[in-house]
């Protein structure tokens, strides 16, 4: 679990987000969406703070966070890697690419490297099926990727 410790300034931001939705518990999903946009992820302390503002149980907030795959409790790496697992990419070997990335980075899907450099996720169809299989690193799109290219691609990211 993350070691995120909430600060007063974070509390202020969360308070503003919740207030912008009138502290309405019915807007929980929108509030979580906006908060994740602000912090990049939703660690425990942030969920507690949202629950406090909306006067609902933390268990309820956690229930929603874990239900929707869009929400994450782990921070993304500085370079977020997403592998397309849509049908076209899948049949053209996306799984091998994922396995190779897991092997090289020593992390699981949804994880982040110890140095915070890379994180690995899968997603469905980025709409570039002609380039299958597709890997995104940050904003950059890599097409027709083969497993043996992964090492070089990763090496091109320095910090």
């Amino acid at each position: 679990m993350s070691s995120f410790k909430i600060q007063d300034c974070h509390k202020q931001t969360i308070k503003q987000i919740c207030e912008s939705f009138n502290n309405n518990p019915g807007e929980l999903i929108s509030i979580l969406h906006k908060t994740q946009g602000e912090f990049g992820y939703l660690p425990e302390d942030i969920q507690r703070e949202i629950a406090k503002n909306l006067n609902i149980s933390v268990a309820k907030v956690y229930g929603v966070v874990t239900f929707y795959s869009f929400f994450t409790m782990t921070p993304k790496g500085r370079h977020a890697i997403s592998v397309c697992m849509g049908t076209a990419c899948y049949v053209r070997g996306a799984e091998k690419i994922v396995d190779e990335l897991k092997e090289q980075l020593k992390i699981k899907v949804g994880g982040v490297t110890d140095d915070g450099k890379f994180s690995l996720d899968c997603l469905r169809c980025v709409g570039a099926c002609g380039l299958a299989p597709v890997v995104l690193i940050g904003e950059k799109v890599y097409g027709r990727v083969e497993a043996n290219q992964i090492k070089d691609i990763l090496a091109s990211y320095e910090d």
Partner: protein
Amino acid sequence: MEKIKLTIDNIEVEVQNGTTIYHAAKKIGIDIPVLCYMNLEHLNIENRPGGCRICVVEVEGRRNLAPSCSTNCTEGMVVKTHSLRVLNARKTVLELILSDHPTECLVCSSSGKCDLQSLAQKLGIREIHAVENAERSTYRKDCSPALNRDMDKCVMCRRCETICNDVQTVGALSAVNRGFMSVVAPAFEQDLIDSPCTFCGQCVAVCPTGALTPFDDTSKVLKALTDPSKTVIVQTAPAVRAALGEEFGLTPGTLVTGKMVAALRTLGFDKVFDTDFAADLTIMEEGTELLDRITRYLGGDKEVKLPILTSCCPAWVNFFEHNYPCMLDVPSTARSPQQMFGAIAKTYYADMLKIKREDLVVVSVMPCLAKKYECQRDEFKVDGNPDVDFSISTRELASLIKMANINFNNLPDEEFDSPMGESTGAAVIFGATGGVIEAAVRTAYELQTGLKLNKIDFEELRGLEGIRTATIDFNGTPIHIGIAHQLGNARKLLDGIRSGLYNFHAIEIMACPGGCIGGAGQPLHFGNSDVIKARFDAIYREDASKTLRKSHENPYIIKLYKEFLGHPMSEKAHHLLHTHYFEKNKI
């Protein structure tokens, strides 16, 4: 409201518009099997996630089968509740649920009381067509001092979630994750002990399987009973005698005080005492504290904390420690009767027997699961030795009696032992909502006014409504009293005080429906208000049958103060009979 007609299994039935097929069928005596569905009629709360699909029925003209618990009747509807198609679907649904459920029924503590097991019986499941190497969901087991969670056995009926959030407003549990890994859990899937759980145990009382079960110390009790170096004594809470008989087929509301005492003696307890003795003691301490605060308040002391809140219910104590940390100095500091009994037993009584406290084992039989947690609290231990060693529930006592082949219904009535078995009618009503405050009023009135009560029964304090208020005339001084049972009502009452809606001198709160008589350690009642009512009446019958009905008239309590404690709220009483509360961080 508009009426509609439909046909169920060739029987015509007329129902209000908005009635579900399940309820319409029930009206004509057809019991459609359910699993997740639960109706808490007296609370107006239904658990109806429509998730299990066991209750499906065939509706003419409709392509798919309909879940009867969540499908409303329509005019002219033709329903079949047991066609071959329906039965096959139910069997398939159940097999799918069972394919991800442990098959350890032989050793499961819910065996024989499990809805899932009964359904498998009813639908004639003889084989679970498991796919080889099929995925199974497994979770970490979570054992707290009061209840255990084994989520491998969870069928996601979400009854516990409804009780925890909608009825008790505790908010410890929520459905988390999705798909195969979905489960009901505390936030961040932490242990219950780290969550805002109050251990009221109402979730255990509605769980249809063995996913939520009480923490069970009966084997340790049996071990202590066979240890010749130990003196083992037992105390029984007031509510136990009004419900224990149900486990032996007796009608709800049958009082089995005498048989219970006989059974405990047969089980081998050295002395059979009564928590009622300690309840009388509680009134002496809590009543004195109440009078002290009111007298100071009426004398113009603005610092005094009012209303005073009762502190007998351990789930309620946990609730305010979690939810109202700014009010920790408001509740009475008096310990609960269970703990007062333990403290006196391991000092006064152990001295009387000339034995060390370590050689005296105090067992309590409680209608409650939170008592299991309470007796393990550090502040109720001396050098690691707890005042109350083991707390077992009414249901667990019934199991022990059955295990020992005791023919309960044929037992003669026996009397509690002296001195800690002697009690008044004021003590027995602790078992019902409103009882503690009525007992306190009986004593406080006489001590305050110096007058004798003409009428001992305070009908205005009795009843089963969730929140009740009354004003008692203390010879010219009106004393305002509030009463709530179930934690959701407690929250409403406290929020009402904060907002200035209510103004009370004293408040009684109990966590469970009807008070302790509806506790989670009692024979399961699944929210049946008739059962609660029958137990409620039994408690007041026992009170009315007693010669002494005011705590301060208990001769053994008078003797205890004279020989040992001095006077109520003395230094010794403070040390042994009072406690303090801690802020608990809400997760």
